[in-house]
């Protein structure tokens, strides 16, 4: 089918342009790409190799990436687009298990004003450093969290539910501030912070554990004898975080993805009120999530500087979102215009955070 489509596409091509696809392979990387004028480009890339690979359209001098195809299976064809200004470019072919090969330089002439920005690729090593810093940060936070869940369990153990209601929120917020780590916590995250989603028995389901189960009990008149086991189990699970996390393998790209996913989760789970089991603390959770986002963004900042033109705007949007979410208020107490402002600030922020993952995606340079 690929062959048939290609034949038809060739038939459609305007006169004066190459009617050959551009090849990607170890031996013919970039073959078939001929000079053209500045502006939007569409390259039909055909993997003529026996291996799958990644294909990058790069600046010849800087190695900046203007377009990216991954994966491209052997024998397949796909389109790579970029709006290119005048300059020298070449195709980079990174076939599996082989060193990177650069194709011949192609010069593009014409007026400036193209929109695609080249981005110097981030290496795996760059990201590993950020990931290690993140791991160290989380590890440093866990003892304080464990003390807080300890206190919570002790409150309930001695039947002081008023103290438990007071101590629940700081403990929960400490956990929510960790933001980026949930993937690395694995199944423990569900034990510690699971909701009733997916539980057939809903709020009565005996498999429901953790902060939200406790929240439900504390704010719905359940007795300390009903909750003492829940609190103790939460405390135990939190104490298991340190050894679990010490052995966790965090994928370097995970930290970059979480830069926007923490806010996505805040919008999806907190701003909707879906995770409110009685404490009405969603807005405080949003603030904790944003604090976590700021930490992750700070670790990535050295990588983003020079690569992400909207970085300053992103920080401004983060500050505005934090202002909108500040103050210990229930979501339901917000006026319509306060609520709309909160939605707008988080909406604007998450759009600006979205490119972080793609920019920080490690790409092969050798």
């Amino acid at each position: 089918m690929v062959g048939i489509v290609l034949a038809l596409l060739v038939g459609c091509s305007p006169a004066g342009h190459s009617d050959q696809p551009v090849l990607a392979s170890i031996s013919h990387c970039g073959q078939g790409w001929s000079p053209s004028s500045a502006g939007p480009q569409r390259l039909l890339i055909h993997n003529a190799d026996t291996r799958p690979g990644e294909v990058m359209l790069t600046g010849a001098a800087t190695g900046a990436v203007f377009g990216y195809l991954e994966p491209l299976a052997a024998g397949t064809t796909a389109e790579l687009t970029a709006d290119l200004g005048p300059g020298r470019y070449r195709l980079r072919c990174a076939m599996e298990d082989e060193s990177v090969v650069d194709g011949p330089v192609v010069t593009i002439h014409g007026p400036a004003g193209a929109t695609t920005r080249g981005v110097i690729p981030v290496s795996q090593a760059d990201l590993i450093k950020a990931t290690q810093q993140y791991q160290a940060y989380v590890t440093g936070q866990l003892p304080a969290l464990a003390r807080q869940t300890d206190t919570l369990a002790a409150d309930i153990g001695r039947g002081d539910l008023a103290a438990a209601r007071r101590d629940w929120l700081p403990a929960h917020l400490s956990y929510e501030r960790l933001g980026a780590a949930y993937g690395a916590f694995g199944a423990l995250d569900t034990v510690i912070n699971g909701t009733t989603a997916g539980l057939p028995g809903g709020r009565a389901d005996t498999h429901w554990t953790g902060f939200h189960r406790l929240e439900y009990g504390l704010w719905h008149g359940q007795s300390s004898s009903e909750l003492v086991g829940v609190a103790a189990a939460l405390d135990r699970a939190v104490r298991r975080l340190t050894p679990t996390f010490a052995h966790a393998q965090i994928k370097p790209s995970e930290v970059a993805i979480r830069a926007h996913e923490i806010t996505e989760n805040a919008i999806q789970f907190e701003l909707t009120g879906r995770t409110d089991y009685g404490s009405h603390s969603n807005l405080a959770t949003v603030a904790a999530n944003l604090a976590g986002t700021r930490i992750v963004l700070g670790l990535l900042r050295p990588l983003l500087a020079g690569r992400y033109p909207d970085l300053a705007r992103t920080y401004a949007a983060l500050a505005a979102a934090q202002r909108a979410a500040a103050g210990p208020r229930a979501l339901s107490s917000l006026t319509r215009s306060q609520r709309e402002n909160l939605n707008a600030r988080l909406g604007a922020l998450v759009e600006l955070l979205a490119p972080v993952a793609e920019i920080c995606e490690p790409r092969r340079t050798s």
Partner: protein
Amino acid sequence: MTGLDRRRFLTGAAAALGGAAAGAGATRLAGPAAASPSSPTPPERRYAFDGPHQAGVLTPAQANAAFLAFDLTTGDRTELQELLHTLTVRARALTQAAVPVPAGISAEPSDSLLLGPAPVSDGLTITVGLGASAFDHRFGLASARPRRLRAMDTFANDQLDPMQCDGDLLLQVGADHPDVVLHALRDLTRHTRGGMQVRWRIDGFTPPPRPAGAARNLLGFKDGIANPDRSDSALMDQLIWVQPGAGEPTWATGGSYQVVRIIRMLVEFWDRVGVSEQERIFGRRKDSGAPLSGSRESDTPDYSDDPIGAQIPLDSHIRRANPRTPQTDASRLLRRSFSYDRGTDRNGNLDMGLIFSCFQQDLDRQFVAVQRRLAGEPLSDYIVPTGGGYFFTLPGVQGESDHLGRWLFS
């Protein structure tokens, strides 16, 4: 599959790919795919974006539409102007089916590709209006408010839900297919998330003629038969477009007042009413759409020899709405309504009805005057207005250096 079928299939596929892959290897992007004679899809409609007036007013109602009222969450006047500029740029690109710009790896994908790689216009129009609240203290525009613009009036039969009324800015998006409406909505909202937030939304549709003539509303009657002739530009200047020297701010020239009213129809109740009674309530035949004084949809109702309503009752909808006297001529307005259907209520009754939408030069001389004449009409027992708003449709955009509402800021 026979050889002939196969060849036809491949030709269709090639035509569909034409815009996406105008030539293998590196080429300048071609323009949007033109529908070729062999294309399986009919040629698509495209309405110009630039002009003295916005599209979506005189444009015939498309099959699908969405109405979204937003509240502005911009900080100040400059940000509001930037927001209107962004809306202009995106509305032009969407309606003119501009090829999405490759984003590279330092930006979000520039398009959802909901419509595939070759953009389509599909009769898309995007029409922007401002509500009275946009002219409050926030943006320093109080003195520029169109003089009739205000929060929507509450009329005798209204049961308005404040959550579904008014708003700072109205987007009216219409297209021949629902996916094109949704594609435009997603694009417009993602580019403006910080600057405005949806206050209320309602989606509508225009059914095909059954069997011919004007589309039927959900009460089963042909609707919009007696609209003024949109091709008569002198008439449109008299009835629809704000003219210079009429007491309106200078910037408003070429704009129009838009009224949107979400009118629920109590269809279960209606379906229990005899057809003759329904016809007297409307003043038209249900099957043909003809006025009760005529026999065809296109017949003009004649009230001159019917002073007591023997043919068309005095309190029938069409007679109250447009008495066709010289005194009421100037109150004619341009209706551009859609039907809506949004599930069921707690009684198990269907929540459906009309997104009544109309354009006029003067809110009070036209819509409000008509609405006053309709007060207490028998039809009001079967309908409940629940939301909507008054908006001022901004004048058109004239060229790349212009943007919606530009003269509002000068």
